[in-house]
C-alpha cells in the first residue's frame, strides 16, 4: 500500500466526478431555455442512479472474478469482499475500495454522455430505466472485457488507457442508436434551435478539461511517471484539438466560433483518452489536432445523414473515440510505456489490427443492445413526451419547474 498513490487516486476520483456536472453545463447551455432543467436533471440524477447501481451490483459485473472473460461474477455484490486492502490484479498500492470508487465515476459519466443525443424530447421515466439497463447490460460487460481481470479484449492485447473504447465509443454508438430510434425533435430543420446559453457550455467544457486530468492521469492508478505522461498528453492533445477545430471551421465557414473551440477541446480529450498512457507528447498533439478536424467534419455531415443527434454525441464522442482508439494503434510506443505495445508507426502493424477488433466489437455490441433496449421501451413505456409537452418544454411538463423566471 502506498499513501501517495492512494491520495492521488482518491483525488482523481473526485475530479472525474466533477466531469458529470461539467457535462451537465456543457449540454445544458446548448439546449433551448425551456429544457435546461431537464437536461441538467438527467446528468445529475445519473450520478445517484448509477452510483447506487455500481455499489449494489455494477462493480461486481464489471470487475468481479471473470466468468469466461465476458462478465464479472456476483461475488462483489453489495461490495462484499471490496475492502481497504489492495486487490493485486488491479493495483498493488491502493485500497480495493479506492479503485472501485474511481471506476464508479467512469460508470456514471458514460451513460451521461448519451443524454446529448435525445435531449428536448425523451421521457424522463424512460430515461431512468434505459440508463439503468444500459449501464448494466452494456457498460458493465464492455468494461469487463477491456479492463476486468481476465477480460477477453484485454487478453487480446487491446490498448485502452482510460476508456476511449469503454466510455466514448460505447456511449457514442449508443447515442447513434438513440437518435435513430427516438427520432427528431419537433421542428428540427425548420425551427431555429439555438443554444440558449453558450457561456454555460464554455464553463462546462472547462470543467471537463479540468476533471479529465483525473480521468486520464488517475488511470495510471499511481502517483508516478506514467500519471505524469498521461497528464501531459491529455493537456497537449486538447490544446491541439481546440486549435484544430478553430482552424478548420475558420477555413470552411469563414469565422472561428466559441462553441467550436469548446467542442474541439472536448473532441481532443475524447481522442487522447485511450492513448494517454501509451504515446509521446508530440504524437498526442497530432492525435488531438486531427481529432479537432475530424470531429468538426463529422458534425458538419450530421444534417446530411438525417438523424437528430441533438448535441453531437456521435460526432464528438463516437468519431473522436474511434479516431483515438485507432490512433493508439498507430502512435503507441513501448519507449513511453513498456507495459503497452508498439503501434503501426513503431513497427508493429498487428497492434493496429487488435485496436480495430476491439473497436468493431464495441460498436456492434453497444449498438445492437441499445437498439433492442430502446425498441422494448418504445413498446412498453414509450420513448417520447407528448407533442404538446415537447412544445411547452420538458422543464414544465416533466418537472413542473422552470430554469429562469423574470
Amino acid at each position, binding site marked *: 500500500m502506498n499513501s501517495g498513490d492512494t491520495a492521488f487516486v482518491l483525488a482523481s476520483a473526485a475530479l472525474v466526478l466533477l466531469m458529470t456536472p461539467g457535462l451537465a453545463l456543457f449540454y445544458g447551455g446548448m439546449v433551448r431555455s425551456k429544457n435546461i432543467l431537464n437536461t441538467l436533471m438527467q446528468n445529475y440524477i445519473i450520478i445517484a442512479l448509477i452510483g447506487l447501481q455500481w455499489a449494489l451490483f455494477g462493480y461486481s459485473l464489471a470487475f468481479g472474478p471473470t466468468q469466461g472473460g465476458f462478465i464479472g461474477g456476483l461475488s462483489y455484490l453489495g461490495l462484499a469482499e471490496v475492502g481497504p486492502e489492495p486487490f493485486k490484479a488491479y493495483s498493488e498500492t491502493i485500497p480495493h475500495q479506492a479503485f472501485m470508487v474511481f471506476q464508479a465515476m467512469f460508470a456514471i459519466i458514460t451513460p451521461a454522455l448519451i443524454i446529448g443525443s435525445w435531449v428536448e424530447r425523451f421521457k424522463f421515466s424512460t430515461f431512468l430505466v434505459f440508463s439503468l439497463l444500459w449501464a448494466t447490460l452494456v457498460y458493465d460487460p464492455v468494461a469487463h472485457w477491456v479492463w476486468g481481470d481476465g477480460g477477453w479484449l484485454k487478453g487480446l492485447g487491446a490498448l485502452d488507457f482510460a476508456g476511449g473504447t469503454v466510455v466514448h465509443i460505447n456511449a457514442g454508438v449508443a447515442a447513434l442508436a438513440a437518435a435513430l430510434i427516438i427520432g427528431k425533435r419537433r421542428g428540427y430543420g425548420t425551427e*431555429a*434551435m*439555438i443554444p440558449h446559453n453558450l457561456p454555460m457550455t464554455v464553463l462546462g467544457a472547462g470543467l471537463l478539461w479540468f476533471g479529465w486530468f483525473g480521468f486520464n492521469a488517475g488511470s495510471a492508478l499511481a502517483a508516478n511517471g506514467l500519471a505524469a505522461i498521461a497528464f501531459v498528453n491529455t493537456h497537449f492533445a486538447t490544446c491541439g484539438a481546440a486549435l484544430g477545430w478553430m482552424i478548420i471551421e475558420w477555413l470552411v*465557414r469563414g469565422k472561428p*466560433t466559441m*462553441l467550436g473551440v469548446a*467542442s474541439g477541446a472536448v473532441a481532443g480529450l475524447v481522442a487522447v483518452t485511450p492513448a494517454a498512457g501509451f504515446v509521446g507528447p508530440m504524437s498526442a498533439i497530432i492525435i488531438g489536432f486531427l481529432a479537432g478536424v475530424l470531429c468538426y467534419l463529422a458534425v*458538419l455531415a450530421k*444534417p446530411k445523414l438525417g438523424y437528430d443527434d441533438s448535441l453531437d454525441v456521435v*460526432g464528438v464522442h463516437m468519431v473522436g473515440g474511434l479516431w483515438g482508439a485507432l490512433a493508439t494503434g498507430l502512435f503507441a510506443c513501448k519507449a513511453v510505456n513498456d507495459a503497452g505495445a508498439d503501434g503501426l508507426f513503431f513497427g508493429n502493424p498487428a497492434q493496429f489490427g487488435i485496436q480495430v477488433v476491439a473497436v468493431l466489437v464495441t460498436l456492434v455490441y453497444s449498438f445492437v443492445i441499445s437498439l433492442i433496449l430502446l425498441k422494448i421501451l418504445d413498446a412498453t413505456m414509450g420513448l417520447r413526451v407528448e407533442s404538446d409537452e415537447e412544445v411547452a418544454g420538458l422543464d414544465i411538463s416533466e418537472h413542473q419547474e422552470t430554469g429562469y423566471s423574470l
Partner: protein
Amino acid sequence: MKKIEAIIQPFKLEPVKDALHKMSVQGMTVTEVKGFGRQKGIREVYRGMEYQVDFLPKVKIEVVAPDEKAESIVKTIIEQARTGRIGDGKIFVYPVAEVIRIRTGETGDAAV
C-alpha cells in the same frame, strides 16, 4: 404633449441618453426589444447548423415632453443614434392625452 418612441441600436443607448440628459429631459423609459424592419434578420451558425434569426435585439426609448420640445428631442435622437447603416431604427411620435404623477396627482405639463 407628445410621446417620442425611438427604436435604436442597443449600443447607441448611452450617447442618446447622455444627449437627452444635457437638454434636460426629465425622464425616459428604456426597454430591450426585438424586431425587424428592412434590415431583416441575420444568419447564425452553430456547429455548422445555420439558422435564420429574424428578430434582432434593439432598444426602445420612450420620452414624454411638452409639444415645443418634441422636435428638438427627435433631432437629438437622430443625431446620436444614426450610423448611416441599415438597422439604425425608427422614431414614432404620438400625441399624449394626459399625464398624471401618481405621487401627487399633478396633471399635464407639471407632471412630466
